[in-house]
Structures are given as structure tokens and as C-alpha cells.
């Protein structure tokens, strides 16, 4: 019988004869991190036997099995037939378990997820945009049903959402808008002082806060406070099949869940924005009086003069629009979340990011629009 060692290292010796391959393990196989003993090239072909023999193994421990498996598994996958019968039981048993039997069908695993190519990314973006458009359309239909008195909306849900969006948001709206007004007066004052125009700080603060910042800041705060909560509530309802339970009864989840949230936000929006604007304007008082020496009555009088109806309604309309977008983003992400905890978390994050993005786009677009209308 011809026998020829094709690979011979300290750890293994591969030989080949008429019957097939012979893999002799040798030396000390203890410990982790040892280099993988090489397989010969060309190695055992499909259908060839590989007799594994541990007689020359002087010492081994439980790390020997994974090491040997790493050596044999590729061979088994390419169709070779390892013969483990000569191994000690403690080594053979786990290896037999880990090496699939020849001809065994593999589990039908799904292919790799999330294609990261640019085309797939664009397609996902497009599908996402379509979902959003469809959602907005459904909300519009639902509003139509509400006006015709056909929508099934839960009044107590509306009241609860009013509370969440309104009174419970007041502390943080107060704090944020106070600081914004303060900063605006302070920084604006510093610039205007250079040309001796401190008395115009009131105009800067009033127009800035009432027309732009109050709505913007309230929208941003509600995106984090309420939009995220909407996404989380609806997302976990979806994960728990509560949305399916509504639909199975023939209750439209948009009517029942989205409308009360959207309407509560739209109801509270003008009130919150007006309040935020008032806080912001008053916050200009300390720096104006304390640093720039403008009398308080003059500042307030100038504010009153600068505040035109146009600024006020533009500020309220824009801010209410932002807050509507926040509610839509939150509900859209929640209703279309995946069905596990991970996805509900992702939906919450996406709801906030989307709300902020939509607010910024809406703010830019409306500013250009109102400017070009000369308002």
C-alpha cells in the first residue's frame, strides 16, 4: 500500500492511500488560540473518506473539538466524508453533533437582509415616501369622514392627548422660549448697540419670536415630547396586534387612533405658540433693561408697536403647521412600525428625526412663500 505524507506539522499529519485520506492528530492539542492546522491542497474531494485518528495525540482538552471542527467542517461542506469512529468518545460526540450528516438538508434560512447598495437605498426611500403619501391621504379621508360624522373617534382619547400636548408641555415650553428670548435680546442688542440702535431690540425680539421662533421651538419640543410618544404608543399597539384587533372589528385605526392625536395637537398648537411667544418677548426684558439701559415701559411699548396682526397670524399658522407635521410623523411611524421591540424603538427615533426634517423644510418653504407674497 502506497502511503505518502502530504502535510506534516506538529499538530497533524495528512496522508493519502488507496482507501482515502488519513488525518493523524498528533502532539499537544491543549489550549485556545493555537493556529489552525492546515489542510492539504488539493484536499479530500467529494465522496472521499477522511479517517481521523487520535492515537498520536499526546494531550488534548475541550478546545480541541472546536479546532478540529474548524478543520473538518469545510471538508464536509465540500462533500468529503470524515470518519470519526477512531476518536475518543468525548471528542467524537460533539463533533458528530456539529458536523451535518451527509445529505442532510440545511434549514431554509432567509437571505441576507438590508441590501446596502445605493439602488436599494433609493428604493427603500421611495417606498417610505409612498407610504407617507398614502398615510397622509388616509388621514385626509378620515378627516372627511369626521366632518360627515362617520368617523369613530374616541373622545376620551382626544382629551387625554390634549392634556399630554398642552398643559404637560408648558414647563419645558416656558423654559426653552424664555432662554431663546433672552439670547435673542442679548445677542441682538450687542449688534444694535454698535450703531446705537438699542431701542430696536424690541422689534428684533418681537418679530423674531412671534413670527418664527415660538412656533419653531414649540414644534421641536413637541416632536421630542409628544411625537415620539405617539410613535411609541402606536408602535407597541401594532406589535401587540391591538391595531389588527381594531381592524378585524372594522374600526379604522386612522379614525380611532390618529384623529384624536392629530386634532388634540392642532387644538393645542395655537394656544401653546401664543404662550411661547409671550414668554419669549417678556424674556427680552432683563437684558434690555439690565444691560442696554432701555426702560422697561419703552421696551414693552415698542414690542406692542412691532406686533402686527400679520406677524401674529403668520406665526400661529406656521407653528400650527409644524405641530400638525409632528403629529403626522409620530403616527405614521408608529402605525407602520415593525412588530418587535427593536422596531418600536426605531420608529420612535425616526418619528422625531422626520418631524424635525419636515419642520425645517416647512419653515423654509413658508418663509419664502410669505416673503414672496410680501407679508
Amino acid at each position: 500500500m502506497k502511503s505518502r505524507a502530504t502535510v506534516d506539522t506538529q499538530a497533524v499529519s495528512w496522508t493519502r492511500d488507496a482507501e482515502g485520506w488519513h488525518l493523524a492528530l498528533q502532539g499537544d492539542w491543549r489550549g485556545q488560540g493555537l493556529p489552525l492546522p492546515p489542510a492539504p491542497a488539493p484536499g479530500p474531494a467529494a465522496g472521499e473518506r477522511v479517517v481521523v485518528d487520535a492515537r498520536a495525540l499526546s494531550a488534548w482538552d475541550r478546545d480541541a473539538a472546536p479546532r478540529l471542527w474548524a478543520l473538518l467542517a469545510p471538508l464536509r461542506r465540500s462533500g468529503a466524508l470524515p470518519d470519526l469512529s477512531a476518536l475518543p468518545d468525548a471528542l467524537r460526540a460533539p463533533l458528530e453533533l456539529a458536523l451535518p450528516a451527509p445529505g442532510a438538508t440545511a434549514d431554509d434560512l432567509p437571505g441576507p437582509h438590508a441590501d446596502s447598495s445605493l439602488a436599494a437605498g433609493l428604493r427603500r426611500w421611495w417606498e417610505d415616501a409612498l407610504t407617507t403619501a398614502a398615510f397622509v391621504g388616509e388621514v385626509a379621508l378620515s378627516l372627511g369622514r369626521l366632518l360627515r360624522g362617520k368617523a369613530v373617534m374616541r373622545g376620551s382619547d382626544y382629551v387625554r392627548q390634549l392634556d399630554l400636548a398642552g398643559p404637560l408641555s408648558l414647563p419645558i415650553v416656558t423654559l426653552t422660549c424664555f432662554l431663546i428670548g433672552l439670547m435673542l435680546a442679548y445677542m441682538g442688542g450687542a449688534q444694535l448697540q454698535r450703531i446705537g440702535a438699542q431701542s430696536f431690540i424690541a422689534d428684533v425680539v418681537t418679530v423674531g419670536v412671534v413670527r418664527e421662533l415660538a412656533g419653531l421651538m414649540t414644534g421641536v419640543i413637541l416632536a421630542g415630547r409628544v411625537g415620539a410618544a405617539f410613535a411609541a404608543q402606536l408602535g407597541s399597539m401594532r406589535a401587540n396586534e391591538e391595531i389588527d384587533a381594531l381592524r378585524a372589528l372594522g374600526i379604522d385605526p386612522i379614525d380611532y387612533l390618529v384623529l384624536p392625536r392629530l386634532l388634540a395637537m392642532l387644538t393645542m398648537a395655537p394656544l401653546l405658540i401664543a404662550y411661547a411667544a409671550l414668554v419669549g418677548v417678556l424674556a427680552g426684558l432683563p437684558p434690555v433693561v439690565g444691560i442696554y439701559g432701555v426702560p422697561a415701559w419703552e421696551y414693552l411699548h415698542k414690542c406692542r408697536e412691532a406686533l402686527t396682526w400679520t406677524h401674529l397670524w403668520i406665526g400661529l399658522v406656521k407653528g400650527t403647521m409644524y405641530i400638525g407635521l409632528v403629529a403626522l410623523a409620530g403616527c405614521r411611524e408608529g402605525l407602520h412600525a415593525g412588530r418587535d421591540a427593536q422596531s418600536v424603538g426605531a420608529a420612535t427615533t425616526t418619528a422625531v428625526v422626520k418631524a424635525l426634517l419636515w419642520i425645517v423644510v416647512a419653515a423654509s418653504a413658508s418663509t419664502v412663500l410669505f416673503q414672496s407674497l410680501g407679508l
Partner: protein
Amino acid sequence: MHEAAEPLVRVVGLTMAFGDEVVQSGLDFDIRRGEVLAIVGASGCGKSTLLRHLIGLQEPAAGQVLYGDQDLNQADDETLAVLRRRFGVMFQAGALWSSMTVGENVMLPLRLFTPTPAAERERLARWKLALVGLEDAFELEPAELSGGMRKRAAIARALALDPELLYLDEPSSGLDPFSAARLDGLILNLRRHLGTTVVMVSHSIDSVFAVADRLLYLDHVEKTMTALDAPRLLAERGPERVRAFLRRRDRA
């Protein structure tokens, strides 16, 4: 005894698919009045999806789900509303609406779809809860109930509008053997005392043997139904994979 009963629902040539991948095709079967029909099969064979098609939550790739002569997926809104009154659904984890009490959960369908006055609604809801052994849970939040109680409360909610047909998704999954047996008993009692037809998707072979008159086996290899008959008959002389499946009794 159910051989001659008229079909409540007829499923004709139903094909289910996720995207381009066909999961099951050529499903033809009847749901007979008064029977307990169990839909079984390996995980991923499309049992729960079939249920979603039967209740009109998802449109099948092809085929019809006929309630009488009316295809569920072709029905206009008003017909659909009428058809939906005919069945109740219990979802896998109960799917009780978490923002309402158990009692409100049961009363909501009554409030929305019937002219029942408020006091009467409460009495009816308490009665439905009593039917499932939960009369004391009326004021509780769903989160305060155990898994088995949530499922029973969900059955009470599904019974709110007195449906003739009850769809149950995995009634005994995630339950200890005692609660699972109790739920099996409840299913049989509902059928016996209310005459409710029950269609259940199940993983539990024991539960199927305990309650089902007929068993529908969805085969994941052939991607169609390969058996529809009494569980005991199928265990003896059903197709090979069905017999193998039925031998895996889960509880001793």
C-alpha cells in the same frame, strides 16, 4: 355528526404569498357550522397568514374566502361591516387594547356597533367575562392579567357581538399546561353551550386532540394542504408527514 352541516365559510383556490414567494397554494376547504377546526403545520407554513386572510386583514394573492356567496375581499364597506359581525377574533397574545380596562375592551364593540344603552352594555360585558370565568376582571387593566387570563378576556371581547364563528390564533401558546387545558375546556364549552363554530391555529398537538373535530394540515414542503380530517384518523392513516407531526405530543 357534522358531515351534513352546511358550510359557514368556503375557501376556494386560496394562494398565499409573501412578495414573490408562494407560501401555500390551492387551498380548498369549508368551515362547517358547529365544528372546531384546527389549522396546524410547521412554523412558517402560513397558518397565521391563512387566519389573516380568513378575517380579511390581508388580501390573498389569489382565491376566495366566501361567507355565504360573498367574497370577503371583494365586499364593499357596508357588506364587509355586516360580514365582520359574524366572526370574532382572538389574537395570539390577546391584543387587548392597553389603554382601556378589560371591561371597556369588551364594551367597545357593543358601543360602536350596537344601539345598546350604557347600563345594558356593562351588564352584557360582565356576562361575556363571566362566560370565560373572568367576571371579577371588569375593572382591571389588561396589564394586570396573566397571559392565560388575557387570552380569555380577548375571547370575551371576541364574543361581544355574539358571533357565530370564533377565530383563535394560538390559544394555548405561551401558557402553562393548566391554563392551556382550561382554555381547551373553554373552547369546548363555548361550542357546546353557545353553538359557536371555532377555527383555531395551533401548535399544540394535545390541544388539537382535545378539542378539534377536524384538522387542516398545511404542509411546508409541498406548500399546500395535505390533510383535512379528524385528528385521530389522521394520526393513524394520514400522510406520512402529518402522522409524524401528530406523534409529537407536547404534554405528557
